[in-house]
């Protein structure tokens, strides 16, 4: 009997340990995903951010510089000062870009928080590159941008004209208190920098002036493939 009790106690302990390990692993995964999202979001806030966004394609670009440089060593070691200078320059440039991008996602969150309305999940959207490929001209133009603006009162059809005036390539639709802007071929890139620039311009030219005329409750941005 005592043996069975021991086994049961051991089983409970094992289950508790397993559950704790699962929780830890899930926490680690979530933290890693969050860091990854933040890295991509940070990269979107600076020009040349694609090089520091953790995309493997940046290594391919680097190899295009490194391999011919290595071949130079077979030709004449004295020529190596050029690739050394080039690599040092690239490293310096990347460091500048990296330093400039640090805290970019937080700055974007702070920027979104200053609005008198809610801008839903802004830095999370900036940190999402799912479905994207490297080439600007492959998956890039096929991205679909949807910006939904929830107004505090029913909107008039003239608001759709404002959005079309802001972006003639976009389709604008009003339904009740919801104003929606859809763009079927949003220019993609290796980071979400085009989206950041687009939304910043939208906020400055449309959202804030519109909010003064007709209060906005919430804005959500979605970029999908």
């Amino acid at each position, binding site marked *: 009997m005592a043996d069975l009790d021991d086994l049961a106690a051991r089983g409970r302990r094992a289950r508790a340990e397993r559950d704790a390990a699962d929780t830890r692993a899930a926490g680690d995964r979530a933290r*890693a995903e969050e860091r990854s999202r933040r890295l991509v979001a940070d990269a979107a806030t600076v020009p040349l951010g694609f090089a520091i966004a953790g995309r493997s394609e940046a*290594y391919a670009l680097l190899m295009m510089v490194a391999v011919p440089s290595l071949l130079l060593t077979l030709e004449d070691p004295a020529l190596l000062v050029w690739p050394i200078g080039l690599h040092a320059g690239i490293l310096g440039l*990347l460091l500048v870009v990296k330093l400039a991008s640090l805290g970019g996602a937080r700055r974007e969150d702070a920027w979104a928080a200053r609005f008198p309305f809610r801008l839903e999940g802004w830095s999370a959207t900036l940190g999402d590159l799912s479905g994207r490929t490297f080439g600007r001209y492959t998956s890039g133009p096929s991205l679909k941008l949807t910006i939904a603006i929830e107004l505090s009162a029913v909107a008039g059809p003239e608001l759709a004209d404002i959005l079309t005036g802001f972006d003639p390539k976009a389709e604008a639709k009003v339904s009740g208190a919801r104003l929606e802007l859809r763009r079927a071929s949003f220019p993609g890139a290796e980071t979400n920098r085009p989206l950041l620039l687009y939304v910043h311009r939208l906020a400055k030219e449309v959202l804030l002036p519109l909010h003064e005329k007709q209060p906005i409750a919430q804005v959500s941005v979605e970029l999908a493939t």
Partner: protein
Amino acid sequence: VILKEWGLFLVLVAELAGFGWLRWQPFHGPAVRIQALAVQEGRLYVEEWGGATLADWLRQDAIDPQTGVLLEREVLARSPQRSQAFGRSAALDPGFIELPKRHASFKLQDDKHFLRTRCAGERSTTRVLGARDPDGPFALSADELARLDDQGDVRWKLRLEALGGAPLPDAGAEMVCPVRGVLVFALDRGRLVGVDAKTGNVLWHTQL
């Protein structure tokens, strides 16, 4: 995530370190072989061959005739037209020796010191470049000479002693020289110069 975030920086730093090491280390890439050299009035003419593009160039080293120390190095020509640039028969002293592609060795024969060369791939070909009375100021003991392997398959030691004349940079020191393609020699009006065939550096020179 750390690799994702900093991996590119790490690769760049590693590449920079690698390139820096390649740039400033004494040996660069595939061995550059000394194809030929000659000594004339304190100037050492060296023709090198090597590298991925099989580039040839000719350089001129000014060496101190007393100590053998390299004073100045100048690349004279670097082109496929090396023969014209070198002007090997016209510009240089008649004592100019075209040196072996890979091997050079000493040989004692009939109580004389002979400097013999053998080209790679031509095992049977030897050429006598110079001869010297064993009692002369350049001393290479008969025992040591006898240890030289004509096939070039063993390592041998060459002991140089300064006996009058110009002092040797490595006087009295033993130099261990792998036979294959490491040392090449030039002989010019009594001056013998040993050059590292990989680096082109003058190892020693002396008056015969």
